[in-house]
């Protein structure tokens, strides 16, 4: 039985697509057959983050209209044969697809993959409804900001209303130094409001921007950064392993400097 997981957040720009790309890649590296589905019709980005933009021939729309077969539209990753991407159409809007159609396509993909990750667009309108239509579980992304947390809270409510009970929280872009100075919401603050199980905390990391621009997911880099480790840990927790959370808050100065030193020595 394959797992269909939607990555969603409500608010835009909190890292849904980055997270989908990295988790998808990390899962594929652990020898699972993984399909990532971009549900962001009209504003697709997932192909860029995976560096697959120049390999797209067909999109989900063509599959739905019967212009091509599903296998033709699925883009195999250039590095990882276990990973495939179903791109969204860029020349359409969210209303071009109905939740039923989306469910049909995703259920078809699920037949031949272990994991289907759906990258939801921001908002709670049609695009969101399409993305959650076929999902069994959800990864709710948020950053430690009140706006993002409130939107995530709304999304959790909507997921519950859509009968998605298995939900996990990812807190992205945490700055331990700011939390210590009491200038940023802590993991505990966020968890207290959202009240769903935490599966990962990803520290704010400049390397994420570099990896995004290069189309190389973080988890692939040879000198894996703290954020990359966090993504790998999320994947292992997703598979049921119990991994202690990265020690970001306590004695962060030491940890960060130690890791930086380690990297400097290596390079």
């Amino acid at each position, binding site marked *: 039985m394959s797992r269909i997981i939607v990555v969603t957040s409500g608010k835009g720009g909190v890292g849904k697509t980055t997270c989908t790309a990295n988790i998808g890649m990390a899962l594929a590296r652990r020898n699972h057959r993984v399909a990532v589905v971009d549900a962001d019709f009209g504003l697709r980005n997932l192909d860029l983050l995976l560096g697959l933009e120049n390999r797209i021939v067909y999109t989900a729309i063509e599959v739905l209209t019967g212009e091509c077969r599903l296998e033709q539209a699925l883009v195999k990753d250039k590095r990882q044969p276990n990973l495939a991407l179903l791109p969204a159409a860029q020349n359409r809007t969210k209303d071009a697809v109905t939740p039923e159609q989306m469910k049909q396509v995703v259920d078809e993909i699920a037949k031949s993959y272990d994991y289907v990750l759906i990258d939801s667009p921001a908002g709670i309108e049609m695009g969101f409804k399409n993305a959650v239509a076929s999902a069994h579980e959800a990864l709710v992304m948020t950053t430690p900001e*009140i706006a993002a947390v409130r939107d995530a*809270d*709304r999304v959790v*409510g*909507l997921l*519950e*209303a859509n*009968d998605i009970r298995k939900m996990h929280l990812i807190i992205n872009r945490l700055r331990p130094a700011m939390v210590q100075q009491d200038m940023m919401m802590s993991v505990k603050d966020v968890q207290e409001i959202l*009240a769903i199980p935490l599966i990962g905390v990803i520290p704010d990391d400049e390397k994420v921007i570099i990896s995004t621009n290069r189309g190389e997911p973080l988890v692939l880099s040879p000198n894996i950064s703290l954020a990359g480790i966090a993504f790998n840990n999320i994947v292992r927790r997703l598979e049921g392993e119990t991994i202690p959370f990265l020690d970001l808050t306590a004695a962060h100065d030491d940890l960060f400097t130690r890791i930086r030193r380690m990297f400097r020595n290596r390079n």
Partner: protein
Amino acid sequence: MTSDSSAPASVSAISPVTADTTAHLQVRFKTESGRLLLLLPPEDATASGWADVLQQLKHRLNSGDRFWQPYTAVHLVARDRLLDVRQLQTIADTLTPYQLQLKRVYTSRRQTAIAAVTIGYSVEQHVPIAHLNPPTEAGQALADPLYLQTTVRSGVEIRHPGTVVILGDVNPGSSVVADGDVIIWGTLRGVAQAGAAGNSRSLIMALRMEPTQIRIATQVARAPETPPTQYYPEVAYVSSEGIRIARASEFSKARLLPQPT
């Protein structure tokens, strides 16, 4: 004055507003002589469409599933709401996971009655006289308390013509509107309104009061700009100076014991 006024006055009053007395009705469960009634809001009372009704139904089911015995028969009170076969089937399907069975449909619409008969529910059709002369008396009995075990999340609004008890947090961006008291066994971070029909003796209670705003009858107050260092279970009430907040442990005593002046 009393110990009430020395209690943490955590709110500052803003100008009073007229309370929204025409509380929009929401989907409601009610037990009446051993039967479980599912009351749908009348068609005209809400702008809420079918999607909203279904969402409210799911929310109510989720937050009260401890209370229903398996295989309880549900009587649907559809009032003047127009329901087709598909919608009735959706209601029945939604109830099934909670081991509730739709048995009977009460409606004032002919089409709804026909639809219900078509898929085999017993139907009671009655003439909608009640809606022609709505109750105009000032005094109206409050509905039974609504008890919910849930986190009230952003975007959710709970309205009830009686007292509301919530076991869980009320998050920012959500609101609870009750004609009676609002009791929150958890943290209040959203908007709470007690005595929405105008009863200024209504109370708002929470284990941890961090509201966006609280309203009692015609009074409005917001949380202080600087949050308190420590939280206690608190009670908000209306005094002659507007909404005040007292520590729960002191509130009941202050009301019961004569105050030394």
